[in-house]
Structure formats: structure tokens, C-alpha cells
């Protein structure tokens, strides 16, 4: 069969192009993190603060190679990044700035970021689990009775999930559930009780968005002729929804879940701040406050890379699920 090889060819070409695009995007990201750090404002001033003396600034520039030509600095930055070296944290590195041997004396920033990743993953994982479970329930119920008052209320709930400010929801939950009811700890990390409130907070937005997609793609599917056939054969509504249509409606749902997974990683920045959850987001906000440029760069790079990789994975998964893309090898 010639057809199989064509599909394979298309897929390979598509995957190849997507991979190249992703790599280019990562390069652009590194360049942006570098160039923005060098060109917007004075990096020495950014790091040392406005009170630094002229001599201190000059020393700092000399020591960190900021006086070298930009292209040389860029090359150095690129090779460093490829070998996983984002420089040395100012916060964890020194008590007095800047020291003679800037390199080697302080703490590498990349491990600092990476050791925070499991906490963020844990939070995002629980949140997406809650979101998918809630959204499937809400979306399916709404799709079974379009136009009814149940549908309208679910629609408002879904939109409210998208319209709520996450950190505010977090604060409200802390006051009501932790302070007044005393059911769960206000913040921190460790037991399973600690993860519930942050995960609920983080789940609000994806719940709303996924529920909307579940509803609309189920409605599309339910209006197709085969559903009529199934119904005429005597299948009950739950059976039609769960056995016949849910699988066919799943492509847009899975895509949306993937999209939201990327968004969760950045949304975690705010939620972690509210709940003092020791993930990458909290580290990033801390280092922004302390003006720790290498640490900021590393944290942003790591999270952005994860988001890009998640998007890539979703695109690839999507192309396997959807025969139209598989055949056309086109843009997702």
C-alpha cells in the first residue's frame, strides 16, 4: 500500500519541521533573555542598585566581562547556556558584591532552579487533574441539556473560572477554608493537605476553559447522524455520551488540556507566591525582588523552555490524533 508510506513521510516531515521550529524558538528565547538583560537599562546598575558608587559599577563591569564587545558576550553566554551554565547567583553567591573571582565562588543558578521543579510539577499535576475532572463533569452535563438553566449556570461558572484573579481566589480560600473553618493549612509544603488549596486555586482557569471546549465539542458530536442511529437503537443518554461520542469529541479537548498545561506552569508563579509554595515561581519572584539577574534569567529560561516543550508535545500528540493533520502534514 502506497498510502502508508505517504502518511509516514508526511509525519516525518511534519515532526522534523516542528522540531526545527522548536529549536529555533529556544535559540530566540536565549537570545532574548541575553539581549534584554544587556540592553534594557544598565545591567551593572540593575544588579547593584542605584546606590552603587561609580567605582563599584566599573569594577563589576570589568569582572563580569560587561565591557567586552556585545557579540563576544553573546557568544560566551550561548556556550555557557549550552553547557548548562547560567552564571552565579548573587543572592546565594556572595555577601559582598562584587568579589574578585566572580565565577566559581558562588552558587550555580541552574541547579537552584532545577531543585525547585518537582514542587511546581506536583502543584501543576494535581491542578490539571482537578481541572480535567471538574471540566468533564460540567461540560458533559451542560452538553446534555443545551439551552437549559443548568447549561446557563454552568456557562457562567466556566466564564467565572476564566475571569477570576488567581491570587485573589487563593487569598479568599485561605481566609474561608483555613482561617475561619480551620480545615486546611494556610500555606507551606509537605503533606497532602498543603497541596489542596493551591491546586484548587490554580485549577479555576483551566476548569473554565476545558469545560467550554468539552461542551461545544460534545454538542458538535451529538448533532451527528450516528447519534440518532444509536438513539433509535435504544441507547440511553449516558451511554451515548460516554460510549459513543466522548472519544470522537476528544481531539479538541486534549488540545485544550495541553494548552492549559503550559499556562499552568506560568500561572503557578502567582499561586506559589500566595501560598509560599516552594516551586520555581516563588524562586522567580524572590529573585526579581532581590534583583538577582542570573537567577532570574535561569528561572525564566527553564519555565519558558518547559512551556515550549509542552506545546511541542501537544502538537505532536495532536497530529497523531487528528488524521487531517497527519495526512496534510500541515500547520497545527
Amino acid at each position, binding site marked *: 500500500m502506497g498510502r502508508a508510506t505517504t502518511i509516514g513521510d508526511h509525519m516525518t516531515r511534519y515532526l522534523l519541521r516542528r522540531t526545527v521550529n522548536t529549536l529555533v524558538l529556544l535559540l530566540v528565547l536565549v537570545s532574548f533573555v541575553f539581549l534584554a538583560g544587556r540592553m534594557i537599562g544598565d545591567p551593572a546598575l540593575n544588579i547593584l542598585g542605584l546606590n552603587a558608587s561609580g567605582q563599584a559599577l566599573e569594577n563589576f563591569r570589568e569582572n563580569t566581562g560587561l565591557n567586552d564587545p556585545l557579540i563576544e558576550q553573546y557568544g560566551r553566554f550561548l556556550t555557557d547556556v549550552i553547557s548548562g551554565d547560567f552564571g552565579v547567583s548573587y543572592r546565594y553567591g556572595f555577601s559582598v558584591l562584587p568579589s574578585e573571582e566572580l565565577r566559581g565562588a558562588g552558587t550555580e543558578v541552574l541547579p537552584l532552579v532545577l531543585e525547585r521543579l518537582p514542587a511546581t510539577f506536583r502543584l501543576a499535576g494535581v491542578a490539571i487533574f482537578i481541572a480535567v475532572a471538574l471540566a468533564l463533569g460540567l461540560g458533559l452535563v451542560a452538553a446534555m441539556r443545551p439551552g437549559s438553566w443548568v447549561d446557563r449556570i454552568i456557562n457562567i461558572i466556566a466564564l467565572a473560572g476564566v*475571569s477570576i484573579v*488567581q491570587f485573589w481566589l487563593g*487569598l*479568599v480560600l485561605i*481566609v474561608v477554608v483555613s482561617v475561619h473553618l480551620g480545615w486546611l493549612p494556610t500555606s507551606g509544603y509537605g503533606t497532602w493537605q498543603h497541596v489542596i488549596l493551591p491546586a484548587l486555586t490554580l485549577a479555576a482557569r483551566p476548569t473554565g476553559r476545558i469545560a467550554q471546549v468539552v461542551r461545544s465539542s460534545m454538542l458538535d458530536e451529538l448533532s451527528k*447522524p450516528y447519534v440518532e442511529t444509536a438513539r433509535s437503537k435504544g441507547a440511553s*443518554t449516558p451511554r451515548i455520551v460516554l460510549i459513543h461520542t466522548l472519544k470522537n469529541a476528544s481531539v479538541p479537548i486534549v488540545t485544550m488540556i495541553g494548552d492549559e498545561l503550559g499556562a499552568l506552569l506560568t500561572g503557578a508563579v502567582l499561586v506559589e507566591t500566595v501560598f509560599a509554595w516552594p516551586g520555581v515561581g516563588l524562586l522567580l519572584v524572590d529573585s526579581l525582588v532581590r534583583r538577582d539577574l542570573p537567577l532570574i534569567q535561569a528561572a525564566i529560561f527553564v519555565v519558558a523552555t518547559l*512551556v515550549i516543550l509542552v506545546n511541542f508535545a501537544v502538537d505532536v500528540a495532536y497530529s497523531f490524533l487528528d488524521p487531517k493533520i497527519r495526512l496534510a502534514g500541515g500547520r497545527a
Partner: protein
Amino acid sequence: MTEEIRTGEHPPPPDRSERLSRWTYIAALARDPVPLLATVYLVLLVVSAVFADLVAPYDPIKQNLRGRLAPPFSADAGGGFIHLLGTDELGRDMLSRVIFGARVSLSVGVLGAVVSGIIGVSLGLVAGYRRGFVEDAIMRLVDGMLALPSLLVALFILFLTGAGFLNLIIVFTLLRWMVYARMTRGLTLSYRELDFVKAARALGNRSVRVMFRHILPNTLSPLLVLATLEVAFLILSEASLSFLGFGIQPPNPSWGLMIANGREWLQQAWWLVTFPGLAILLTALSLNLLANWVRTVTDPVQRWRLLTPSTKPQRRLFRAKARLAERGTGGVETAIPGGPE
């Protein structure tokens, strides 16, 4: 659970040439309580934001340390208007601050959406109309930038440039134009081969004129819906950035900033955090509801749901007519037996 899945409400075949008067829309809005409420709320919000100096009972920045942390509905120590929403940790009237905060939030949202919209729509038009290399370049940039986590990039840029109103607008423009560009390109592609565009070109109009005078007006209603959603998104983003200290700076009242301040008083004074948060929620929710409604009502395939009479016998009659009309055209979806693929 009932056995029927209500997919039997067949719409009449869409008549795309149909032009509806403004009154049809207003009447439909008046029939629908939820979007109507959203509209009323938004109108009130915009009016009080514009005339904040007249509407707000107090100066939003004026401190009154003797009347600090007064709960909602408490009388003013100086014998002034009662503090409907209480006062904050510096004795500033919360209601006045929420009203002036609306001015900040709405201007960030609307200005950001308009500026990024103008840039994005122009680039999208060019990409869809010119095709070829230009389109490739623009769309690659769009795809690439959409893959970046915008909140993080915004934080990073604002960290480097410093916070503030103008920088916020610039950052939002930089990070959101792609959304408009992508949609405009898609719409332009679907219009560029239509007869009226070909005719406009054949008559010798310059490309810029064809794009902006002939294609653009047809794309406005979906773009307007998108812009409404963007205003909501930007208001939420502004709140988040201000909360982290990289948005609007004190003592200016911004909703996000007010929540950040109130966080320290969470247990003593719940109203400091509650009211600005509610203001954001209601505003974003109203914008979303309204956008949804406009999307449905401007969609020729779906709008019959909202524009049809709402009493039961009338509805039944309407559906019967629709079914007849459908049978006349050969049936859009006759039940052909066939299982799942």
C-alpha cells in the same frame, strides 16, 4: 435523566444577506437577563470611571489615620459620607479607591487592547492579502511569540524597564498583537478571493485601500469580540503584574495593587481584599458574557437562538417553519444511518 438529547432544535438555513436593524439586537438583549445585567454593570462602571471625580465620595489618596480599617457601612469620623465599603489601612475610603481603580484598570485594558489591535490587525491584513514571503515571515513570528509564556516575559521586561502605566501598555502591545494578527489573517484569507474584493481590485484600487476599505469592515465583528475578551485578559494581567509589584505603582489605586496591600490585613480586615477582587471578577466576567453574546448574535448560523421569540407556542411555530424550510432545501442533515468511524 430524560431520554431526549435536545439536538432536534434545527436552525433555519442561515440567510447571510439578512441585515438586522439595531433595534432587533437591542430587543434581543433586553430579553436576555444575563448579558443585559453584564451590559448594565459595564455601563455603570465606565460612567463612574470617567466621572470618578464627581462620583467618588472621597479623594482616593487622602489618608485619614484616625479612621483606619473601618469596616463597611461605618460612619465617617469627620462627619462625611459613610464609608460604604469601609476604609483601608491608611484610612482611605475603599469605595473611592475602587472607583478610581476602575479608571486605571479600564484604561490599561482598553488602551492595551486598542494599540495591540491596531498593530495586529494591520499585520494580519497584510499577511493574508499579500501572501508569499511576507505572510510566512509574519506568521512565523506570530507562532513563535504565541508559544512564549507571556506573563513571564512581561515580568522580565518590566523588571528591566521599570514598572508604570506606559511600560505596561508597551509590554501588552508587544505580547498580544499576535492574537489579532492570527485571526485577521484567517478572515482576510477567506475574503480575498470573493467577488467584491476582486471587483475592487479590478477597478484599480490600491492594495492598501482594498485591505482597509473593502476587507477590514467585514472582519470587524469577530475582531470586536476578540478585543472585548482581550480587555478582560489585560485587566487580569494588569492586576497580576501590579500584585507582584511590576505594574501600577502606589499610591495610585489599582485593583491588583489594592489586593496586594490588603493581603497583610487579611485576618483583621477582609474588605480590603474582597472588594477589589470582586470588582475585577465582575468586570472580567461581564466582558466575557457580553463577548459571548455578541459572538452568537453576529453569527448567521447561530443567532436564530437569540433573535427568535421567546414564548413557547411562538417558538414551536418557528421551529416547525424552520423544519419545513429545511426540507424544502433538501435537508441539511437528514438522518443517514451510519455509525462512528
